[in-house]
């Protein structure tokens, strides 16, 4: 191990290696920083801003911000949590999230973050946007109603699967996830075992015919809040 960098998160001393991001160093020390677009094994994207922390008072994305000696990081404070709650609430009203029949429910990272933050209803009006479903692929469903534009599938397909099946098109409110085919997902070389299928944090990319397999009560976030596994792990254990 090379020289360590010391800094603090909410007053706790965090040892880190130079070049690590704040999110990685925190995770290693058993401190959970909420995140959505970050995914283990993919290059950080820094787009969802759910991992926002205050670094010496300035908002920064913890998943892209490198550690620096002596910096003071605020993570689990009222102010930072309020910012993150707002982002989560906006993601709900910007899409069409009908959790009551979503196959991802109970295993969904967006929903789990809302539960962790105790969000009972978003404070913003619902937009009910017009979004498409692409059910053409024999084994994979793409439901844009639930896409939060995290870009995990884009990075996984490009960097891990080497396929470039997904990419973004459009800007601002018109931005959407597109497939690299004249029309539909079925015309791409996407396979159900691809990393791009596995990494979607929500129910936008789903494997067909495996929904609702796990009973309510036994799904990933039914009993324990998202991030509690990181908080429970001994420092340096992950």
């Amino acid at each position: 191990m090379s020289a360590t960098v010391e800094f603090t998160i909410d007053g706790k001393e965090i040892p880190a290696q130079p070049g690590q991001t704040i999110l990685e160093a925190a995770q290693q020390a058993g401190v959970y920083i909420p995140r959505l677009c970050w995914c283990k094994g993919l290059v950080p994207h820094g787009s969802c801003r759910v991992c926002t922390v205050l670094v010496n008072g300035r908002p920064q994305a913890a998943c892209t911000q490198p550690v620096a000696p002596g910096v003071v990081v605020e993570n689990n404070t009222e102010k930072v949590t309020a910012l993150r709650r707002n982002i989560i609430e906006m993601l709900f009203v910007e899409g069409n999230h009908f959790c009551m029949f979503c196959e991802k429910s109970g295993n969904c990272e967006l929903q789990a973050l809302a539960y962790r933050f105790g969000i009972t209803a978003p404070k913003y009006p619902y937009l009910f946007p017009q979004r498409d479903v692409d059910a053409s692929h024999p084994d994979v469903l793409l439901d844009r109603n639930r896409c939060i534009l995290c870009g995990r599938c884009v990075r996984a397909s490009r960097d891990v699967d080497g396929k470039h099946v997904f990419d973004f098109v459009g800007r601002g409110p018109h931005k959407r996830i597109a497939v690299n085919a004249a029309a539909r997902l079925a015309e791409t070389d996407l396979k159900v075992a691809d990393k791009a299928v596995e990494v979607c944090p929500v129910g936008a990319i789903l494997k067909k015919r495996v929904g609702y397999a796990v009973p309510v009560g036994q799904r990933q976030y039914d009993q324990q809040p998202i991030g509690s596994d990181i908080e429970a792990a001994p420092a340096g254990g992950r």
Partner: protein
Amino acid sequence: MSQNGKPKVATTSLAGCFGCHMSLLDIDDRILKLVELVDFDKSPVDDIKEFTGRCAVGLIEGGCCNEENVRVLRDFRAHCDILIAVGDCATMGGIPALRNNIPLQECYDEAYRNGPTVYNPSGRIPDDPELPLLLNRVYPIQEVVKIDYFLPGCPPPADTLWAALTALLGNQPVQLPYGLLKYD
């Protein structure tokens, strides 16, 4: 308050399926405790159709899909100290809100003219003045009146309803432990 000094609770189902009311019945024998604690005013539970007085708590199931829902919701706001949105339909529109990105005319045509099981040779869409007019889309109730608490879920678990009601009747804030806040 009732003449016997008990606080009153009113409930209604707007654009809902009565599943949330079923969940309320699902508190099982605690319902006996509940009727010791409160009296029901306007509610399908006792079939009282109009408010008889001021209520401590109003439970609203379902969103607003027609003008009648809006009228009832405003009546609840006027008569209840605390209004609680019960269930996903009240909170975000729920299943009825699946029509929200389909033009209203298309919904009518599918329901009364073109649907696979429709028999309607005249092609007429029901327009009796007794029938409440549909709104352009389904509205979550907090977009129509001020709502004090939200208990999401489809339906919210009976334990969630019990926890919230007993907290409020004991003048405590509603705090749901992890596991009682659900969206499904």
